[in-house]
């Protein structure tokens, strides 16, 4: 089957008719579909829109940082009309709006853009194909998972338009601030944030159950654990992270919701005084409890952001070096190790909430330990390049750039992980720089690579290479120009979440200029996304047609289905004979030996 000429749509439809005695209508085919590929694409489109939206919020914030308290050109007055003068006054963004945008940028990027794209979209579209399964184990659950996500997104977005505006206490929503930031309104942005989160968490839990079951149960014949593509391993571990790390935040979210709506004090200690009078609550709660429950999710969550990207990068590197991944086993063990350890490092976000020596020693030791498997993964990918015959297509460029970018992000995690150095760096722009290097040029590049790589599978057409390369080089340059200066600002001590960009403090004077620089770079970054958007939509209609079902000459199973794969995916039940990355096998006729190719 592998490398067969494109199976015509006619044939695949005929095949589908064997099982389905009716032709599904528009709604059940594209909107309420239970087909994992359609759901994957729904996830993908929705998440990309949120990604863009999150970026636009940030551009507005960067405008404020570059020119504090000056009217936002053009958009300012519009925002003022839409959001009211509390939020934008004579075109000037108010502090409340800055904070709301900040919280929503973090939330949207993490929970509504990257996770749905990395796990929901790629996981859904690719995983069943790669393991040789006809669909997910629970297709209807899969659909429910998407709609919970969608609903969660709608609730989050609608919070901008209620009185008082969206949640404005950071994506971390620390109590007591989250409970008292908007006391004038009974149902405030924070309330909707929490309801939205509970929906998103439910979505993730359903998704996680489904993915793990699928990977455990629906692997094709011969697809043993050590023959799984690394991407599938990454998805499996990600699934477990979501499954076991999210419930505490769900619990905490419900508790904070009750705090806000019904006056309980889970996270409010006794004797809070706000605006000169005692808060009329019973007290007796613990603000640090929220932080523990939040970060118990929060840290595994960051690996949820990175692992799928690592999986994608691994697939693309193997494919484009035309050689097996070096140290496949060590990759698998490392990713398991990372998954395992990521549950017991969370309090490195809380060093400065008042920690004794013993507990902080525990957490910084585990934090240093978790960096080792990350180093191993990165090293294995680096070493895989050696001896390859590297094809520099757009997916590969993004995958390659992922490595040093993640490297910078990961390395800057070390001084944050050591509590003594974190004393100074905590909550400064250094932290912002650290994690954006991992999630923006890191994860986003991994995801871009995946989009360029699997686009032909989903649509039967390539994306344009020239536009792709423009997109790549522009993004690479401007990502670095945006985030590298943040390390300098952080080192000077500039705090994050500063409405005026830190201008209040004399200590920041020497690095304030960088704010403007970063903001300009962010605009540059935005400009270089335009080729991508054009490319994306144009290629669906008029991209270069693929000439075979396996255009990249890859080995994994998703390439031995018709293009696009019909409902049920495989024409014939696939059987797996070898590992995932058998490229350039000595003595083989071609430089790739697909997993389902006999002998």
């Amino acid at each position: 089957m592998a490398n067969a000429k494109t199976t015509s749509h006619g044939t695949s439809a005929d095949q589908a008719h064997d099982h389905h005695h009716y032709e599904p209508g528009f709604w059940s085919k594209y909107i309420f579909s239970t087909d994992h590929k359609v759901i994957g694409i729904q996830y993908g489109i929705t998440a990309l829109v949120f990604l863009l939206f999150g970026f636009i919020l940030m551009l507005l914030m960067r405008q404020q940082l570059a020119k504090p308290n000056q009217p936002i050109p053009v958009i300012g007055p519009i925002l003022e009309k839409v959001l009211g003068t509390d939020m934008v006054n004579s075109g000037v963004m108010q502090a409340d709006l800055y904070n709301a945008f900040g919280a929503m940028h973090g939330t949207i990027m993490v929970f509504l853009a990257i996770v749905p794209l990395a796990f929901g979209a790629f996981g859904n579209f690719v995983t069943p194909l790669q393991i040789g399964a006809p669909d997910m184990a629970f297709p209807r659950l899969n659909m429910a998972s998407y709609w919970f996500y969608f609903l969660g997104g709608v609730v989050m977005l609608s919070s901008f338009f209620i009185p008082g505006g969206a949640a404005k206490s950071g994506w971390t929503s620390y109590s007591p601030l989250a409970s008292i930031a908007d006391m004038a309104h009974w149902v405030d942005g924070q309330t909707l944030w929490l309801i939205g989160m509970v929906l998103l968490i439910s979505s993730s839990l359903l998704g996680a159950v489904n993915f793990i079951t699928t990977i455990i149960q629906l692997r094709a014949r011969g697809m043993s654990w050590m023959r799984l593509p690394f991407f599938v391993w990454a998805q499996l571990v990600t699934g477990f992270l979501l499954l076991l790390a999210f419930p505490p935040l769900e619990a905490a979210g419900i508790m904070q919701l009750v705090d806000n709506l019904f006056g309980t004090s889970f996270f409010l200690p006794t004797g809070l005084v706000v605006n000169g009078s005692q808060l009329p609550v019973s007290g007796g709660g613990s603000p640090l409890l929220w932080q523990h429950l939040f970060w118990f999710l929060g840290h595994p969550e960051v690996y949820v952001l990175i692992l799928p990207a690592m999986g994608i990068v691994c697939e693309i590197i193997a494919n484009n070096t035309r050689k097996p991944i070096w140290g496949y086993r060590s990759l698998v063990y490392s990713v398991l190790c990372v998954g395992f350890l990521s549950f017991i490092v969370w309090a490195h976000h809380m060093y400065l909430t008042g920690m004794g020596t013993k507990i902080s020693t525990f957490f910084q030791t585990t934090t240093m330990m978790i960096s080792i498997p990350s180093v191993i993964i990165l090293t294995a990918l680096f070493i895989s390049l050696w001896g390859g015959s590297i094809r520099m297509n757009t997916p590969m460029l993004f995958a390659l750039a992922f490595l040093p970018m993640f490297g910078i992000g990961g390395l800057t995690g070390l001084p944050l992980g050591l509590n003594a150095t974190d004393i100074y760096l905590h909550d400064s722009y250094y932290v912002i720089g650290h994690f954006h290097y991992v999630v923006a040029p890191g994860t986003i590049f991994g995801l871009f690579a995946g989009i360029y790589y699997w686009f032909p599978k989903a649509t039967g057409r390539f994306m344009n290479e020239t536009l792709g390369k423009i997109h790549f080089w522009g993004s690479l340059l401007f990502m670095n120009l945006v985030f590298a200066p943040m390390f300098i600002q952080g080192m000077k001590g500039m705090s994050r979440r500063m409405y005026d960009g830190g201008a209040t403090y004399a200590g920041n004077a020497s690095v304030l200029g960088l704010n403007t620089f970063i903001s300009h770079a962010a605009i540059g970054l935005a400009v270089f996304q335009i080729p991508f958007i054009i490319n994306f939509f144009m290629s669906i209609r008029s991209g270069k047609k693929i000439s075979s079902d396996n255009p990249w000459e890859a080995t994994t199973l998703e390439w031995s289905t018709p293009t696009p794969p019909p409902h049920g995916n495989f024409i014939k039940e696939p059987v797996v004979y070898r590992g995932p990355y058998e490229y350039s096998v000595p003595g083989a006729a071609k430089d790739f030996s697909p997993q389902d190719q006999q002998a």
Partner: protein
Amino acid sequence: MEIPYTVKPRPDTGLYNAKVGIWLFLASEVILFGALFSAYILLRVGALDGVWPNIKNAWPHGLLNIPIGTFNTAVLITSSVTVVFAWAALKMNNFARFRICMVITIVCALGFLCIKSFEYNEKFTHYELRLKSGKAYTGHIEVNGKHPGFWDFGSIYNLARLETDKVEKVKFTADPPKAKPGEKHDESTPKHEVMEVATSDIAHLDAFIPRNHTFFAIYFLITALHGFHVLGGALVLAWFTFPGSKMWLTEPERFINRIEVGGLFWHFVDLVWIFLFPILYLL
């Protein structure tokens, strides 16, 4: 291709899909309730002294109705055993017995919820009163000749409410002092002290509701969450028992699997209660 292993177990794992699915789901539920238990421990251990009347430790324990709780535990245990019997009956090809067992289960579930709502109501009408003089009581109130309660909604009083409603005084029937574990019952105190309290003398007044104390907050939160699980489970089991049981005729093995999976969830709900009961009621 069709999705494999929806009915028959996969040879190498020995499991069918739904079974893996439900156990994964239960794993996340374990962590969910586990997080709430951690919260409970943390809040309780961190409770400050001197906030609750007549109790040295500020955690107002011993306020829940133990006989009712015990009875409810038994109800839930019964429903748990009848679910296994229902499943076993199907395995033994006895559909009639299956249905009887399931009906008992569902009745137990609803019974549990009814009893629980009765308990809730008891708390919503029970008050904590602290006077400016420093005296503190628990008991029942009467405002303008009415006993405010859960059912006539929104009429739970606290000090602020009394003030806005311009209620000048309330009638308060104090509970008889209760023996705490390790204390002797003091026979000399009067059973029910009934008094008229002027609003201006009150330092704090509130029913036994979540906003009054972290204990009630966590008690209501965990039991309500558990209650929703009971309700959800009962609905699913009812579906299997009546409309969904058509599957028994078409795909009996798959139906048995469904009952097994539903049963697993139900046992889990029971299991949570096994820990909840001693923690909330007894300790």
